[in-house]
């Protein structure tokens, strides 16, 4: 199963990858689902960065959005509900050469997987995490999610959600060692692409919460936002999301926001009147767990044998 092949090429001919090289099976989300836009954005970034498909791993949990890996033509891991992050960290731990994209839903990440979420932020491993936040459980057909707004009617709360929704941005900006938090909306591909690219370029865990329409169960939650972009506040900065003429045209409200300022990021996240989009926080100087987990990679078989023998001799009589 293992073992080096002798015909292994050290000098592969230069390859150029097109979008098709990242496009897997036909995506089977509902018509109008916000997930399509995210898939396209990721495939475009892969092509722009010319990431070899064999080096890309899409990791997900369970949910509609977690079907994501099946629609990429790269390696993929479609695992358990709530558990994509431990798997992604395990993959990355000893394979710094792999490019990891995690797709997770609001139920997946903020409910059943919330424990892993906190710790993955703290591990801060070099990967991109996309929270597909549609404020509802889609796959299991319309149950309340931790991010459902108060009054949201679902099959589990037909008279309306009672508890205040969990705010993933505010939560994350309180987690230890958070290093990148962005927010995008699925219906603005330019913004989505720009923010995901920033998250991907970030050395550490680039986390992007994507407000994502579920036309079947939660379309109404984002309807207003989609119709009136003035409810959104675009955060731009030369060290964050740089302003472009296109973005300028699309967003009536914008603000200069220095993403290195955690305090300001928290204030921006807490603004529920004007929903912030852009890069809220970025600190590339935070320690990444990869630097610890990569230790000892490439130890030769001879050195291992010597060390094991030395260990056994420590117990020798």
């Amino acid at each position, binding site marked *: 199963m293992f073992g080096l092949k002798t015909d292994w090429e050290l000098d592969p001919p230069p390859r150029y990858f097109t979008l098709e090289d990242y496009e897997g099976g036909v995506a089977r989300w509902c018509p109008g689902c916000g997930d399509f836009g995210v898939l396209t954005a990721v495939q475009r970034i892969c092509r722009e960065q010319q990431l070899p498909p064999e080096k890309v791993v899409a990791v997900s949990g369970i949910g509609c959005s977690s079907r994501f890996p099946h629609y990429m033509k790269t390696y993929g891991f479609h695992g358990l509900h709530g558990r994509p992050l431990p798997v992604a960290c*395990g993959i990355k731990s000893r394979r710094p050469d792999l490019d990891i994209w995690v797709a997770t839903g609001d139920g997946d990440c903020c409910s059943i997987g919330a424990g892993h979420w906190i710790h993955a932020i703290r591990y801060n491993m070099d990967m991109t995490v996309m929270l597909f936040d549609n404020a509802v459980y889609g796959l299991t057909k319309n149950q309340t999610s931790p991010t459902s707004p108060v009054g949201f009617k679902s099959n589990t709360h037909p008279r309306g959600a009672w508890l205040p929704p969990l705010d993933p941005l505010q939560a994350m900006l309180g987690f230890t060692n958070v290093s990148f938090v962005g927010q995008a909306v699925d219906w603005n591909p330019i913004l989505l692409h720009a923010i995901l690219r920033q998250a991907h370029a970030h050395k550490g865990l680039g986390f992007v919460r994507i407000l994502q329409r579920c036309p079947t169960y939660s379309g109404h939650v984002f309807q207003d936002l989609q119709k009136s972009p003035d409810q959104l506040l675009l955060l731009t900065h030369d060290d964050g999301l740089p302003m472009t003429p296109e973005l300028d045209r699309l967003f009536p409200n914008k603000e200069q926001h220095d993403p290195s300022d955690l305090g300001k990021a928290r204030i921006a996240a807490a603004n529920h009147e004007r929903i912030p989009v852009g890069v809220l926080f970025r600190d590339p100087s935070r320690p990444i767990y990869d630097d610890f987990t990569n230790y000892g990679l490439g130890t030769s078989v001879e050195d291992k044998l010597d060390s094991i023998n030395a260990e056994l001799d420590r117990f020798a009589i």
Partner: protein
Amino acid sequence: MSTHVAEAAGTGSGSRTTVPQHIIEIVSDSGEGAQKAGQAFGAVCAKSGRGVWTVEIIPAEIKPPARSQAGASGIRIRVGSRTVTNMGDEADLVVAFNEQVLYGRITQHAFRKGTNILLENRWATDDSPEIRELYANALQEFREKGFVVHELPLEQECLKHTSNPRVGKNMFVLGMLCSIYGFEVERALEEAAFLFRKKGEKVVALNHELIRAGYAYASDHIPIQFFVPARPNPGKSIVVNGNQAVGLGIMAAGIDVVAMYPITPATSVSHYLGEAFHRVGGLLHQAEDEIAAIGFAIGASYAGKTACTVTSGPGLALKTEFLGLAVMGELPLVIVDVQRGGPSTGLPTKVEQGDLLASIWGQPGDSPKVVIAPATIEECFHFVITARKLAEAFRTPVIVLTDANLATGVQPIPRPNPQEEWLAPPIDQAPWDKKVLAYDWDVESGASPRPIPGQPGGEYVLTGLSHTKDAHVAYDPDSNRVGMEMRSRKLAALQKALKPPKVFGDESGGDLLLVGWGSTQGAIEEGVERARGEGQSVSAVHLRFMSPLEPGLEEIFRRFKKVVAIGIHYSDPEDSPIDKPNRRRSQLAILLRDQTLVDVDSWTRVEGQPLSPGTIYDAIQDHLGRLARKES
């Protein structure tokens, strides 16, 4: 190793009693260093060529009050002239720092008539009249029970050398034991020098002084002296406990990533790896919980790295869902479960073999996987290497079931000789032949080659959903059935490669056959040997493969009039109030009855204790008696 003859001659004064084996205990309040002294004494015995098995005596609480019965903390050391495989029956000699902790041991049937008890006597003159009375009463009671009590002024003697005898007493006792058993005092001095190497010369010197004082005191004042001859040709050995053996096995198996969450009694594997794993370039990841631990290991395995997770019962329960995913996605993975008492938090520090069926069947749906169980500390090492190989050969998780008895038992074992082929070779990153599907099952064995991220052309999505050979999600009836068949076929193929187990005793058959698994082998075989010595027709079989089971069991079982599954897990005894047909059999009996259709009975104990040869011997008498009554 030849010095032991000289030792015996040098210190033996002629009055030394030669014994083939001896069981020694040191019992104290926790924090008085009894375990340290006992481990050092065990090392002295092992290094002098004796067979040794040590078991920790663990109090029920972390910090029990002083002088309480539940607070008995310490160690048992069984020394013998041949390989010692279990803790034995009642102790022959006990050193106790107070009389109350002895009661704790008495309820555990640790002593017999004639057991020598060397008892600290400072309590006889304690300031508190209550303590003086308790001590006097105990003394009388112990003598009535037939123990041979020797009162010793341990504290008073230690005070001549240190102002804090509470922490120094243990080394005084180590010196005493060396004198009583005729070992050169230098052996103990070496151990102390090692134990206290980080504490500075002064501390080492003080402890050396205490050891010498204990040695001299015993030579002059303690009237009992024993000699346990050395083993013939013990060979090159290492002294380890089962968890250290697992840790060493992990390194020798070329395992690259160990992800775990602390849980007794598995934690010390990670303590050992924390110290040593980086030396072989390995990664020890302490995850946020057991689910994340196995998820992390699974991620590493998916990415082509050999991975392992180490846990105990409650952790195994949490890992269940991921285990099913590893079966479904066909990922190699080694899971070590150091079993403890259950259900729930149960007996966290004590032994049980209660995870057998949970390991085999604990996942939702049918999830065939390999489950193996080392029977000895030596096997704890080698089974990790076997597990890794099987996991890769069959692209499956492999559970290694050890238990608290193996985990904490310390024994000299032959030094393994690590081989290059045990280590994981570098992962294959050569282009993948696109004609080969991600699950290109060999219909005979269910095995298939595995693409690894980084291999161009091998791109596939691992999914826990029902899928086809090319890893595509498929809900149709055929795909689901074929996937199930292929995963199950792995066990069939592995079973074909196994040999029937050896019969200990009489292969041709007889009256009674005991079937055991895991850590109980030493006790079972010693009990059987004793009964056979008395002419009884009893034999034993010990299983190492639990899933799949070793072949040929039915044929062996049919040669005996009665077959009894032995284990440290619950079963309704024969005289329980439940109707006979509804009796709940032991986990092992359920497996064996299913496999062989033989009417296998069960005999089990769930007292948080390892089985002892004596209890096995009694069980044999009981079953042979029933058999005789049935026949007459």
